[in-house]
């Protein structure tokens, strides 16, 4: 199944003046760091998250992960903290960064080989498919996400899974993956 990639991410590698030879629905292109230097789409996203009172074009450290993800990457929280230089928890909301500081962080994350594809995501969910029938128990998934790994809040899990479970509390995970990836 060809992954439907999020659009701004697709757009990102295109250098600004000359169009690069890339079909619209290509499989995930190799990220070219050279293109970062002329990268208005990233700047737009950065600006959309800028909530400083004087529009200083800055975001807080806490937002950095969100902006990176909004641009189509999917780092773990650990990876984000690492690229931020392991800031102290109290600094996360107070320390600010500008676009020039943000950019290399984004570059680093996007070069990471460990990103995983849609297939990986499906495999991850298949782990919980006990009967091998393409569906998983919502309750089990909820429990895992809240207790294991980079724990999520119950509220977050609720948001994620709402509308996905059928009458028996089962989630068809391939559809689920499509839903998550299409956002």
């Amino acid at each position, binding site marked *: 199944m060809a992954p439907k990639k999020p659009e701004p991410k697709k757009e990102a590698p295109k250098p*600004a003046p000359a*169009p*690069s030879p890339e079909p*619209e629905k290509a499989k995930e292109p190799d990220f070219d760091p050279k293109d970062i230097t002329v990268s208005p789409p990233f700047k737009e996203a950065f600006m*959309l998250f800028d909530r400083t009172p004087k*529009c200083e074009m800055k975001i807080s450290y806490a937002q950095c992960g969100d902006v990176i993800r909004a641009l189509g990457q999917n780092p773990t929280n650990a990876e984000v903290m690492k690229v931020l230089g392991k800031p102290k928890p109290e600094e996360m909301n107070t320390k600010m960064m500008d676009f020039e500081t943000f950019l290399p962080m984004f570059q680093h994350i996007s070069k990471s080989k460990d990103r995983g594809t849609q297939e990986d*995501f499906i495999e991850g969910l298949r782990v919980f498919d006990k009967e091998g029938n393409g569906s998983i128990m919502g309750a089990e998934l909820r429990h*895992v*996400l809240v207790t294991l790994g980079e724990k999520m809040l119950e509220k977050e899990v609720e948001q994620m899974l709402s509308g996905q479970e059928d009458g028996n509390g089962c989630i068809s995970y391939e559809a689920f993956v499509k839903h998550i990836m299409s*956002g």
Partner: protein
Amino acid sequence: MGCGTSAATEAQGRLSEKDDSVKAPSPALTMKAAILIQRWYRRYVARLEIRRRYTWSIFQSIEYAGEQDQLQLSSFFSFMLDNFTQISGNGPDLISHLLDPALTEEEKQATFEGVEVSDSYSGPHISFPLTVSDTNALLSAFKAQQILHARYVLQLLYETKRFLKQMPNIIYLSTSYTKEITVCGDLHGRLDDLLLIFYKNGLPSTDNPYVFNGDFVDRGKKSIEIIIILFAFLLLYPDHMHLNRGNHEDHIMNLRYGFTKEVMQKYRTHGRQILQLLQDIFSLLPVATVIDDKVLIVHGGISDMTDLEFLGSIERQKIKSVLRLPKSFEDVEAERGLEKICGQAGSLRSAGGPSGGTRKRRCRRRKPSSGSSSSSSSSSSSSSSISSPRGASQVWSSPLPSPRVPSPTDLLQLPFLDSIVAVASLAPPREEAGWKQIVDLLWSDPKKQDGCTANTFRGGGCYFGPDVTRRLLQRHGLQLLIRSHECKQEGYEFCHDGQVITIFSASNYYEEGSNRGAYVKLGPDMVPRFFQYQVSRCTRKLTLHQRVSVAESSALKSLKEKLFAHRSELMAAFQEYDVNKTGCISITDWAQATESVLKLDLPWRTLRPRLARLAPDGAVEYQSCFEDVSAGQPVPQISPNLAETLYRYRTDLEIVFNIIDKDHSGLISIDEFRQTWKLFSSHLNVDVDDSAIDDLARSIDYNKDGSIDFNEFLEAFRVVHKLDTKEKQQG
């Protein structure tokens, strides 16, 4: 340990029994899987958030750009004034004539007593003096979609007018004898929001005082119901219910933003009387409220000239609409005098030629320009002293030929339908100053930088900075300014270092899911507590994803309509980049071209995937921007150029027609239509020949009786979104 883990162990056990070749998931694998799912989910949430944010930007930009388009209309009105075109065959004070409801003598004499309530009326009955059972009856009736009989409406309005006459301009309240005061912001005709506030916070009563900070009407469909409820509580609890005037409590705004239409639709026979009464009532609403001498509550904001003492002394009822210059005397002499001065002033403006061709520079909301730097040199010495201290507004770019300027004449820069008209003022300076004070209170917006600049966006009031706030609060010994007037995503927002609160009470203002509404409670400690809510129209709660998608799709539709309305300009801009005429240009060029035409300051590159298609080589096929939107019905014998113009100015034309159609019948004569259109188009510099207009007029006079149903006419200039139609067809 939850059941999940034991199930997994069970499963592992089962699996190993069933089939040895299937590896049971190890804890490490489970952990890895969890992390993988979590990282994908976090990405999904972030992408949803960015969509939410650009959706919001789109709504705001379009709202403000729509107001900007009104500049054309305002200059059109002044153009009309200059040229004294006797559209309705009446006297020289054209605007006054057009904008007064023009009651017949009979109507003027009639009172509510003459209005009979027939036996077939099934709505609520109320009696005066009002009691709690009356307000309860009204609330239940409106929840059940009933309409209050015109007689009761008129009676309520008479009583309200009588009551308000004794109110001062500024109301001083105290929390000493009550626990907390609740302050609500804009409601804009959203009855559901008002009912939700009452549900969460309780009805107004002697223990539960409320301040409603203006903009009760327009845009939403239940403005008259809100007014009725608010006025009823006002009469019932006069010391515990307070209403501030907003910029939409203004009959001229109501013409544009829907309240007039709503009243005329719900009250066909008595609508005009009701509107006339409302006109007086709106001007009698107090303009500010002060709590404990510590908190100032006004609808819009303040300016560096705001003076509460002076405000307390002006005659507010004379200012029927802040959009019209104050007139100190009614007789014909004044009108003739006006005519003379306008004649001179008029030639100043028209000599420069209409400003239709140039798009006005838009003040970006987040960084308003410091007006002085861009003041056109052409706004010469005769421009009003009101605007020059802060830098002249950017509206009048046409040069004023000096020889014909009578030097003592002050040209008053007057907001009109969200933009500015320069008209000579006849009012004595004091009244003019009072009028200006009120405009500032009702129209201003806070800005981040220090200083006070003219609010050219809205066409009235100003942008006031933190220093202006500080100075005013200090001067009057106040601690806090609460205002409304601007939609906020969370329903409220602090600014100016916590000295200003914006409170907005209409949730889903732009679209389902666009924003929350909020109200704020203040106790004697003056620490504000906020309460948020969101009206949900669906019985089944939408997920966050669905809400964002709904709002986003609505925003994108509006954006596409904007593209459609500016198609020829956009195509011209695109083609400039497309030297080889391939039909494609780079994404950067496309983004630049679009911004240069539309000037909405939106993140075009991020939006591009939703608006235009890419060619196989990654360039933008710019024609695809317009594919999704097409004209609703084909209008025969009409050139595409004319169609586009009509489409773009559809809302403006609607206003003009509504004004000309004095009896609100929906019909205007062919002659009126032709004249209006000619003036309008010549002012817009649109090249349309007379015969095309005549043809158009004749073709829309469907029953050939010499009159045009302009609503039908305007219907032809709606657009449809092809995707919508496709979806509907697919069921």
